[in-house]
């Protein structure tokens, strides 16, 4: 090999390999259905944030002597005066002032629909976050340390998984009825979180067990990198894809669970609206038969939200999974 030849080789443009995130993003973009899911999910999030603000803004704009600063503050905080009972105005069918009519207490259903959406979405996000944190923690520790710790944690996960899910959630929520009504959503987050982590913890453990044996992990051991850094910087990024996907899908599941629990009267308690407890009003036969605008829209919102979350989650799973070729 001549010197010139070597020179040429060295100067040849180096092909920068694409990172796994970039590949996943490319694959995700190609998946039209998943993009639709993602976009509609973002739209729903924006709607539940902005629409209650518009209501608050309209309410405060007409108040005499309100300063601009106050107006902005009240708009961002969403004043719950829009929630006050107006019994004279109850059970009005949809009209121009109340696009979705009013409920039994005369409150505007449209406002409650989107304000309740905030609660339901929040329950979804927080529950998914709690589930993922617990699952990753338990699975990570079990997989990394192995041995007795692994055996103990996995046995524990198995036991939690054998607990009947919905019945236990009902009982725990019932046992926590002392929580003030504004915070009942946190109770739902708590019960969903502490009962749903085992599934993910098993996946994370399995992944970490197999990763631990691979060469790059042996290299980190030889280099004497600390345990924390090995877990956080070298192991976790490799299981992140699983975690993101299961967080997304778990969020949809949590929204459905909130709806179910609230429907049974064991979830978010009124007057705080949530999609679940708005449907609960249908258990009253008059509301059910004569005022469908009170309970149908929240059910529809749940369906749209969960569909878009599921589409997004499945799209992400396909994007991250190198084996899936369509």
């Amino acid at each position, binding site marked *: 090999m001549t010197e010139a030849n070597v020179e040429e080789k060295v100067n040849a443009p180096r092909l920068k390999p694409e990172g796994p995130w970039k590949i996943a993003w490319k694959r995700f973009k190609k998946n039209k259905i998943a993009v639709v899911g993602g976009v509609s999910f973002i739209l729903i999030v924006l709607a539940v944030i902005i629409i209650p603000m518009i209501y608050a803004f309209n309410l405060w704009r007409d108040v005499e002597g309100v300063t601009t600063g106050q107006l902005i503050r009240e708009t961002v905080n969403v004043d719950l005066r829009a929630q006050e009972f107006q019994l004279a105005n109850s059970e009005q069918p949809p009209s121009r002032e109340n696009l979705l009519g009013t409920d039994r207490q005369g409150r505007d259903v449209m406002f409650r629909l989107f304000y309740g959406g905030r609660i339901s979405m929040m329950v979804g996000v927080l529950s998914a976050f709690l589930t993922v944190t617990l699952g990753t923690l338990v699975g990570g520790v079990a997989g990394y340390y192995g041995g007795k710790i692994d055996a103990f944690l996995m046995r524990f996960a198995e036991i939690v998984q054998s607990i*009947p899910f919905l019945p236990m959630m009902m009982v725990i929520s019932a046992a926590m009825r002392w929580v003030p009504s504004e915070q009942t959503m946190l109770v739902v987050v708590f019960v969903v979180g502490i009962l749903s982590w085992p599934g993910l913890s098993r996946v994370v453990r399995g992944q970490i067990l197999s990763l631990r044996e691979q060469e790059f992990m042996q290299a980190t051991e030889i280099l004497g990198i600390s345990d924390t850094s090995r877990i956080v910087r070298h192991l976790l990024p490799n299981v992140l894809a699983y975690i993101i996907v299961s967080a997304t899908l778990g969020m949809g599941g949590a929204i459905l669970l909130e709806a179910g629990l609230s429907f049974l009267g064991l979830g978010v308690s009124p007057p705080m609206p949530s999609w679940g407890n708005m449907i609960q009003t249908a258990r009253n036969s008059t509301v059910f038969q004569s005022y469908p605008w009170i309970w149908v829209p929240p059910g529809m919102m*749940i369906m749209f939200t969960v569909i878009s979350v599921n589409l997004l989650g499945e799209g992400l799973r396909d994007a991250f999974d190198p084996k899936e070729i369509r």
Partner: protein
Amino acid sequence: MLRFLGKRILQLIPTMLIISLLIFIVLDFMPGDQVQAYLGVGSEVSPARQEQIREQLGLNEPLPVQYLLWLGRVARGDLGRTNIYNADVSDVIFGFIWNSFLLNIFALIFALLIAIPVGIKSAVKKYGLFDNFFTVFSLAGVSMPTFFFALILIFLFARNIDWIPLNGMRTPIMAVRGYESLWQNITDVGRHMILPVTVLTMTSLATLTRYTRNSVIEVINQDYIRTARSKGLKEKVVIYKHAFRNALLPLITILGMWVPALFGGAILLETVFLWPGIGRVLLNGITSQDLSLVMATLVFYALLRVIGNLLADVSYGLADPRVRVK
């Protein structure tokens, strides 16, 4: 195989003990006075007598002792008494369980009868019109709260078709007077089952079609299917004789998962349709704070779930000899 089975059954005992202990601890946080529940709401008894009963029930003992006392009673077959049904808890559970079973077994049979052919057809023409339709269908199915779907069905159909009852299990007048014949009994219950079974079938269908489809797709890509095709066998024979039989195996192995659903599923639907099943018993127990009833029902649910897991494991071992190693 027998050793495997024996070992698994022995493992059930500590699992059930821990779960029941967990349930016991959670229930200790539930509001509700067991003495009052024992005596019946509104009964007036002198404080001295109340204290006597408290002593008798062992409620003055510390929690671990109470648990052991409960365990002892259960071992003797005594689950306690329930006030809301004014009967022994065991009688209530075994009385209502069959009502739940009745709903779920029909739903399962219908769902399987539809899901298997639909799943196969979707798999054979992957991403075809038929497949895409059922993909959307199952997505909507898993994304809609079942109780909301039920409410919509009642709202749309049962109001307009008067021979479909809205809820309940029997026509009250007929049930009180007594049925004239067995046939009348069957048709009356049957009419009441139409709506709940429809909803349950649709929701189980959503997951079962996906499951069958994916399982068949996996088999179709195997080498022996290509061999069968290249032998010149008819496509029908290839699919139904060679592919389907093997695709059925994983379907059989999820049989275990159905056990808890068969007896205990559909708490929300039983609430919507006022169906007198075990889910209603649990909810009634929770709302009227009848602790011995709730405790027994929950343990019963847990037992179903644990047995279901065992069946899943065992059938997995039967279907796939490689699993039986340990």
